């Protein structure tokens, strides 16, 4: 018995002296290829845990999950983590490749001077859809109306999923109604709530990640989600030789743009490895992976020559300057607003 116990403990503990970098990342946000190349180059191991919503990540950190070296929060969450004093300032002497980042992504509002964060990838929260089905049904795919208007939804009943994220769904509704995603006007919030409640009976479920496989299998025809996930669904459907294709576009009313960044958490024990990882990912060839393999937008100028043309030319992944005008980034909320949003969210789910 004792021997068995000892053996199990030995198995579970990482081999002594092994260097491990703990990364808390979005699911489906770095390819296995990239991870392997980094592990070979640094002779260390990269261990990942995953989240599918910023709120989920912030909540888990607040609950006492300490020890992550690196996290990949979106701008608004970076802002919140900085105010929380939870981040370690970057040592830029360890990041020689930092100038690779495009100028428009440097010095962002959430982290002036990039003291804590390095932009990694961008995604747009948009609509993914079954091209074949929607063509058969003759439905437009360039507007949020597809998931909010009963007129269209009537043909899609039970075939639509929307994000299980209070912030993202409200933002989509706000853009469709012509408001800013930052609005605090109670009347506009109420309007958005009513819009959502009117459409809800037609939706299948709230989902943050399962829509990837549901789109690929073909049980879901329209999904509100992240551009990189839609890309994955598109690839999965193609590889499995499904008799249909998956497409995704940014609705014309505008949407949420997420700039996701590497930051160092204070509780991390290996800032040295974390810096090495960030700099590795800043290298053009490596940075290109996030676009080529994951289908995310890229803030790295040096990556551009490596990015496959069909991806670089996809406006749903790399928005045009005109589209950029209609994209907004989310901001963090205070506890009182958080509570009233959560209350509204509960009401949305119950009604």
């Amino acid at each position, binding site marked *: 018995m004792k021997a068995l116990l000892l053996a199990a403990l030995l198995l579970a503990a990482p081999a002594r002296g092994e260097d491990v970098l703990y990364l808390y990342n979005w699911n489906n946000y770095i390819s296995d290829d990239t991870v392997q190349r980094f592990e070979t180059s640094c002779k260390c191991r990269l261990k990942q845990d995953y989240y599918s*919503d910023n*709120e*989920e990540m*912030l*909540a*888990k950190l*607040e*609950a006492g999950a300490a020890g992550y070296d690196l996290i990949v929060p979106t701008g608004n969450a970076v802002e*919140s983590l900085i*105010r*929380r004093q939870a981040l370690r300032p970057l040592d830029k002497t360890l990041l020689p490749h930092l100038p690779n980042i495009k100028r428009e992504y440097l010095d962002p509002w959430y982290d002036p001077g990039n003291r804590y964060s390095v932009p990694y990838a961008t995604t747009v929260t948009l609509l993914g859809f079954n091209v074949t089905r929607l063509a058969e049904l003759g439905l437009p795919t360039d507007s949020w109306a597809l998931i909010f208007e009963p007129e269209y939804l009537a043909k899609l009943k*039970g075939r639509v999923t929307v994000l299980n994220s*209070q912030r993202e769904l409200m933002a989509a509704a706000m853009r469709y109604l012509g408001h800013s995603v930052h609005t605090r006007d109670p009347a506009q919030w109420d309007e958005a709530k009513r819009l959502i409640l009117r459409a*809800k*009976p037609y*939706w*299948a*479920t*709230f989902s943050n990640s399962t829509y990837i496989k*549901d789109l690929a*299998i073909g*049980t879901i025809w329209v999904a509100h989600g992240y551009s990189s996930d839609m890309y994955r669904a598109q690839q999965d459907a193609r590889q499995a030789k499904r008799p249909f294709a998956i497409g995704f576009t940014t609705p014309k009313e505008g949407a949420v743009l997420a700039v996701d960044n590497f930051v160092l958490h204070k509780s991390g024990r290996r800032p040295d490895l974390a810096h090495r990882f960030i700099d590795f990912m800043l290298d053009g060839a490596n940075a290109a992976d996030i676009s080529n393999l994951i289908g995310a937008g890229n803030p790295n100028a040096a990556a551009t020559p490596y990015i496959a043309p069909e991806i670089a030319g996809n406006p749903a992944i790399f928005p045009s300057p005109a589209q950029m005008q209609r994209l907004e980034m989310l901001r963090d909320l*205070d*506890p009182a607003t*958080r*509570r009233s*949003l*959560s*209350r509204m*969210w*509960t*009401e949305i*789910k*119950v*009604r």
Partner: protein
Amino acid sequence: MTKRGLRGDLTRWLVSLPPTVFLLVFFLAPTLIMVTASFQNPGEFGGLAPLFAEGQARLTLETYRFFFGDWIYAEIFLRSFLVAGATTLICLIFAYPLALTIAASPKRHRDLLVLLVILPFASNFLIRVYAWIILLGPAGLLYTPIAVIAGMVYVHLPFMILPLYTNLEKHDPTLLEAAQDLGAGAWTRFWRVTWPLSLPGIWSGTALVFIPVLGMFAIPELLGGTGDILIGNLIKEQFLESRDWPLGSTLSLLLTLAVLALAALSAWAASPRRQRS
């Protein structure tokens, strides 16, 4: 006090203290913390605002006011009770014929038949839910209330079968024979003899199914649709998404009270004294 008495006392404390202290610290204390947490303010970034600030305790009824401020939260409690009730009822309908069959089969087969009930539950809980994702997806039933109930029933069924079987197995067959001799038909024999005698088994099975269903969040999350939110989901959301620990604590506390009341009720219903009267 005699020497033996002293030593006996010492033994008694040596044996009972470690588990008692462990459970006082890691079960009772956390539950009490939950009570105070429900009266605290949410922290700015999550967690709880400090209990003491400027030499004063910062307690508030705000969360309770918020909870009782409208019907939304009560409605979710009610809905959870309905789902738990439906699950329990279906479990009972499924479990009864099976338990009856096992109890009526030859003694040498019974252990095997019971083992066959337990075996599927040696697989991981999530795998049992996952099976229904695969099964219901193509049928177009995934993300519906039916899927939630199916998952709930599937996961909790043995907790109804086993106590029921344990009870039925103890029944004295001569009672049924006597009833038959008195001219009672099969239905009458069941309804007037077997059913009333099996009530204690039904009650313990009900408690074992009903209570865990109340706190379930993974099944509605993985199988349910837009409206399938239960207390468990709501509690999880406060702690792991909305960062509103006071509200999460209040919800947990109310659920605890509901569960304790239910457990007491079922213990009372299943008690032999009541059965006799």
